[in-house]
């Protein structure tokens, strides 16, 4: 068991390394090839060769790409220092770099964004789990009935609606037309829970709608498969009440696969729900990433990609471990 976890951890680290390498290669390598010079991004309207050169060295863009990568990794592990003119800025490990655009360290910047993404992901997750699973179970039990048809049609519609459309639609209806919800922006939970809730409501619903649809379909399929299993027939043959048959024997194995999917989805979301965040102006990791890409803020792009990948990989690992616990047939080794 322990050995397994260790091996998995090592794999995870390797994956992350590859992610950084690829990302680094693309965003620091490509400019070298295409000849566009990141240093120019940080200079003002009036750029003179001398100061550009100064910035280039300051950003370490003069070094060969591998050296830069090495420095990046070193910073990740032990931290590194950046010159600020008179004195140096120390970037403690894990140092994701220093944005010369905003003159801020990447790590704290991104850490500050995580709460937003977190509230979005968690809130939505709770919603979609409740709605999606119950809908799925119901339509599985009422298979072929009107309810089933209705739920499944709704679900299919759900998975076919782009979130950046439902998002706009939702705000058009609830904010501008019905005026049920106020204009506004994200408010930290710690500052004002009420306001936080009000502001997150629409993003949650929008995001949850999409996932609930997927989960309803998934749950239904799993439940149907389970209910077809022999052991369900056995349970009935034992004279168990239908409630017990479905509620205990059915759900226990019908929902187990959902755990996997859920873990992965959540992991992916924590890496930044780019679309939802951009539709609702939530300054989370996803939004940060978009900004960074648009502004060509390489250190930030690299940082976000790495964090996102980290969440996904970590979720993968966690899911496998959890699965080992909830499914007695799986032996981790």
């Amino acid at each position: 068991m322990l050995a397994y976890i260790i091996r998995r951890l090592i794999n995870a680290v390797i994956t992350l390394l590859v992610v950084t390498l690829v990302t680094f290669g693309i965003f620091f390598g490509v400019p070298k090839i295409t000849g566009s010079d990141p240093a120019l991004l940080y200079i003002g309207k009036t750029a003179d060769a001398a100061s550009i050169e100064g910035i280039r060295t300051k950003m370490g863009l003069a070094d060969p790409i591998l050296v830069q990568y090495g420095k990046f990794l070193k910073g990740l592990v032990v931290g590194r220092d950046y010159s600020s003119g008179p004195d140096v800025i120390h970037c403690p490990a894990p140092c994701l770099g220093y944005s010369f655009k905003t003159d801020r360290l990447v790590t704290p910047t991104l850490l500050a964004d995580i709460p937003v993404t977190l509230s979005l992901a968690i809130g939505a997750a709770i919603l979609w789990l409740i709605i999606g699973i119950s809908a799925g179970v119901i339509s599985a039990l009422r298979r072929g009935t009107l309810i089933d048809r209705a739920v499944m049609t709704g679900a299919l519609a759900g998975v076919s609606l782009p979130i950046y459309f439902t998002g706009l639609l939702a705000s058009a209806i609830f904010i501008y037309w019905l005026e049920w919800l106020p204009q506004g922006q994200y408010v930290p939970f710690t500052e004002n829970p009420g306001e936080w809730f009000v502001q997150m409501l629409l993003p949650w619903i929008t995001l949850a709608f999409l996932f609930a649809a997927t989960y309803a379909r998934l749950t239904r399929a799993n439940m149907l498969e389970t209910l077809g299993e022999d052991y369900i027939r056995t349970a009935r043959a034992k004279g168990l009440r239908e409630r017990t048959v479905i509620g205990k024997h059915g759900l226990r194995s019908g929902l187990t696969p959902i755990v996997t999917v859920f873990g992965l989805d959540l992991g992916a979301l924590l890496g930044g729900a780019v679309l939802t965040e951009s539709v609702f102006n939530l300054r989370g990791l996803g939004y940060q990433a978009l900004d960074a890409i648009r502004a060509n803020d390489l250190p930030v792009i690299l940082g976000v990609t790495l964090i996102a990948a980290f969440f996904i990989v970590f979720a993968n690992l966690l899911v496998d471990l959890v699965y080992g616990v909830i499914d007695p047939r799986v032996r981790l080794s």
Partner: protein
Amino acid sequence: MLGLTTAACGGSDSDDNDSTSTSGGKAAYNAAITDVVNPSTTKGGTLNLWSSQDADSWDPARGYYAFVWNLNRLYTRKLVEYSAVPGKAGLELQADLAEALPTISDDKLTYTFKLRSGVKWDDGAAITSKDVKYGIERVWAADAISGGPVYLPALLDQGQNYPGPYKDTDAEKLGLKSVTTPDDSTIVFKLAKPSSDFIYLLAMPGSGPVPQKRDTGAQYGSAPAASGPYMFKEGSIQPGKGVSFVRNPNWDQATDPIRKALPDAINLTITTNADDLDSRLLAGTADLDVGQTGVQAAARTKLLTDPNLKANADTPTTGFLRYAGLATSVAPLDNIECRKAIIYAADPTTLQSARGGPIAGGDIGTSMLPPNIAGSDAKYDPFNRLQGKSQVDEAKKALTACGKPTGFDVTIAVRNNREAEVKTSEALQAALKVVGINAKIEQYDGAQQASITGSPDNVKRKGYGIIIGGWGADYPTGAGYMQPLSDSRFIPENGNYNLAEIKDPAIDKLYDDAQLETDTAKAAELYSQINHKIMEGAYYLPFVVDKALNYRNPRLTNVYIHDAFGMVDFQAVGVSDGK
């Protein structure tokens, strides 16, 4: 100024009536452009400024956004500062830290300033001439503290290749030779050649004083020292969230002829949602949009259809001009006739709507000198654009003259991160098509502008014949506005803004003459000539003179548009209800 607004309002009469009907001081549509709305001296209360974008930097040497320069007046005093009055008078410089305007030697090369006595930093230390010199020296350290304008080295470095204070070997870090501080209250500038614009450069935030012991280089922006009436509240600078200013206890009204300092506190809140900002403005929970770039489409409709709201709105010209540079290095635009063809074919109206229409976008542009700059003349319309239609016949004629009667292919380069600019490029493309000019739109990464359209080599290689651009003056003189766009000596290999790559000795000469001319009226005349030359050369296609529809909270006092910034003069504003 009034007449100018009227004329500038190409077509839409309603504005004229409104602005003429503004009886001094009362709130009315566009009242703040010409007059001080709700004049008052009541102190106290809190001014709630909002913004949908964060400041680029609060470090005086690094900020470049117009609103940041405007807010800089709250906490940074310079030797000279723009007067705090509406209209053209606001463009005049006035002694600020200096007790009087400089004594200028007869050869116009030596500027001597005497500092006022009793001017203090927020920590109580006296502001000395050394602080001023050190602040100015920081402009040289563009590698450590990039972002701000770098004009002074051109005039003051004089071959010294001063590395900036951080690499300065001088013990006091005051190694810049051309600037001397005989005593703590005197500072002397020695120029190599006369420059009538030099004094304007000293009014830039970057020329403000910085106490050397408090300079943290790249991090200085997170806690700048304050010389003005307000200082940053301890640790209140939160990137992406906002800042709050409180009174600077060591500022003395007696030493400051410019600033009113009415509110007790000024908060700037940054929202991520521009529509939210608008609804707050209309609801009165926000006093001003500090960006002053105009409300969103949704609020625009509300504002203009409700007379009560409209009475508290202004549409000042922002001092920005939107245009397309016609690169002379790219065939066939090396031929003036082909350039003319493009200008004639362009449809002034669609270009205007692409920028947001006559009110939110701006007036149809006719030449390359915006109205807030001495020498501009809104009536000067060489290509007859004010009539608002594309002139196909003229264009066809020009094409024939150019030897391309059937038209030609050309590429429009446009920043991908500017929605309005992309739309203008599409408008232009559609209009050019009519006369057989096939324009291909190429969007480029706006963040890399300096190395893409800013690089003449690249422009030539990629064949960017038409380059969409926009420009606002860093200081309100013809040179401050036009020189980077038209002086052949202002073509660096990167970060070039002379998009047309105009290489006209006559123009260059006129700039030099203007620099010698200390009489602003005469200088204005020269700039007007340059403007004519640029237009005659068909180097640029002006789109619009930017306007922005902004709302001011009725509770505000002393509101007026400051011409140097094209927006409300924040430092003058007070609140009537004391809240």
